[in-house]
């Protein structure tokens, strides 16, 4: 995909999820949405109106939400449990672990308004720990889609999978990063831009600012590879190893704590492959998160076009220092 093609704005991934669920339910009475007083924030009201027998409301009770979902899934229902990521992933963590993952029933946990989507509402409503918590649970597939296409494809894949999923989505309108006819495979990363000087391995709503950073870097003659690592688990190790070998610097980008998320997952792959590359985790550091909107918070922590391009240039300089060689940018 060319950078110039990327600037067509789509809808929110949350909306893409709900539209996909409506499409799936049209042919499948076994599709069930389960909500915890979250149908409006989940944009599921049209679904509830059209398929009233296919939505289950449990009230504000996330433990019960997930337990009930597991019970429903065990009978063959295709369950989409929809609740803000901040509550869904960890308020009900033991139910996710035992009733869903360990019992091996294919509940699809849809963490909405995830990351810092709820920005100004404060840390109670941020989910910067969900991926870390769920990565440690066996039998969970974790997907953080970047755009409407990845969201739609992830939901379609989850609907037919016999395994549990956690899909983390935000509510900001997202640019299209893929053509509609592209291939999407769970566990296989998508290359958004080719490049060899710096590799950005990003996920979710942070992929787009990474593309913007690549544009800035391009103007300075630095080529940036942008990978959408939409599946955090199972992780596409091949793409990570290839990037670490081929690029001069490696930057992970995520709307998540730098502890336990995509960045640490990438670092493990790189180290276990015996590789070394100037490396930086871009995410939310281990501190009380700054107040602000989603965009302000991300910018504050360097997840913006300028922040990411500056980080790339710093790492490339670091490489020159480490190797003591004159490194010529193309």
């Amino acid at each position, binding site marked *: 995909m060319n950078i110039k093609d990327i600037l067509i704005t789509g809808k929110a991934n949350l909306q893409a999820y709900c539209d996909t669920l409506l499409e799936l339910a049209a042919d499948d009475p076994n599709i069930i949405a389960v909500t915890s007083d979250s149908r409006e924030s989940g944009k599921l009201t049209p679904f509830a109106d059209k398929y009233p027998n296919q939505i289950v409301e449990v009230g504000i009770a996330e433990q019960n939400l997930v*337990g009930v979902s597991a*019970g429903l899934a065990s009978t063959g229902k295709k369950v989409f449990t929809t609740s803000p990521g901040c509550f869904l992933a960890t308020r009900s963590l033991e139910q996710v672990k035992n009733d869903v993952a360990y*019992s091996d029933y294919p509940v699809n946990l849809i963490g909405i308004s995830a990351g810092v989507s709820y920005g100004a509402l404060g840390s109670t409503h941020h989910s910067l720990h969900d991926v870390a918590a769920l990565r440690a649970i066996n039998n969970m597939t974790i997907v953080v889609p970047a755009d409407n296409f990845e969201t739609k494809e992830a939901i379609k894949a989850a609907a037919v999978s016999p395994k549990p999923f956690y899909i983390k989505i935000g509510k900001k309108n997202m640019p299209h990063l893929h053509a509609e006819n592209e291939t999407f495979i769970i566990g296989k990363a998508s290359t958004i831009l080719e490049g060899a000087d710096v590799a950005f391995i990003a996920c979710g709503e942070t992929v787009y600012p990474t593309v913007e950073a690549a544009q800035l870097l391009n103007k300075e003659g630095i080529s940036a590879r942008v990978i959408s690592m939409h599946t955090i688990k199972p992780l596409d190790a091949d793409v990570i190893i290839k990037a670490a070998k081929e690029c001069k610097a490696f930057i992970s980008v995520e709307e998540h704590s730098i502890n336990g998320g995509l960045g640490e997952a990438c670092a493990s792959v790189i180290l276990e492959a015996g590789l070394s590359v100037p490396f930086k985790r871009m995410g939310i550091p281990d501190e009380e998160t700054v107040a602000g909107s989603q965009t302000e918070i991300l910018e504050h922590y360097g997840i913006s076009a300028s922040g990411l391009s500056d980080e790339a240039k710093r790492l490339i300089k670091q490489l020159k220092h480490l190797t003591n060689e004159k490194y010529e940018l193309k």
Partner: protein
Amino acid sequence: MGKYSNEELQQKSVKYRLAMLKYIKMAKAGHTGGDLSSTDILNVLYNDVLNVSPANFGDPNRDRYIQSKGHAVEALYVVLADQGFYPETDLETMCKYKSPYVGHPTRKVNGIEFNTGGLGHGLSICAGLALAAKKDKAPYRVFTLIGDGELAEGSNWEAGMMASHYELDNLVAVLDHNTLQITGKNADVCNPHPIDEKWKAFGWQVVTVNGHNIAELREILNNTPIEKGKPTFVIANTIKGKGVSFMEGEKKWHHGVPTDEEYETAIKELESELI
């Protein structure tokens, strides 16, 4: 009247208790007190109430049993073996390296629907199952066994509120009310009483039975819902360690494993009840 007389079921309970003590002794592990208190309930459920067998375990219309108090798994293992889900001798591997028969239920064991053991999970799962049955207009009923110490888990009350909201009268929760938990009496640890009034207030039909009286258990568990539109909460008054006099009502037998001498004494006492 089902397949067995009350006397035959009583004899089965004695045999179950003998078997579970045998395998607990072999494994050097087990939740002996709760196994013994829940034996008669499991006996009646599997031999007289549930439409569940090895032959129909794949049938979507089978009844469902989810053991919320997963720690009483030795009782469940012995009863499932007796139903023909696997040979009882499999239990010689219980709690051993690579055995599927671990200390809480898992689906690796034939006949088990859900992996339980974390407390306060069963009722939510059952509410989901019961709701699925209602949506599909399926005939099956859903049963869970809850421990009384477990009532402190808030998730039970979340599920309780929801089950009555959805009028899940195909759902039955049986409380193994042996009054003791690991630290001591429920009432001293964190008082759950009045249990009956709480569940009534949550919209359930509540009934109290002697959890060791086979006839009473059969009568109640075969006749739910008691009131159309309401889930049923059966408070089964039981004795922790039931059937072995020196274990009865003693909290130390929560997960106590008998010494050789205690084991011999317990076996003799139970065997004396065999006809």
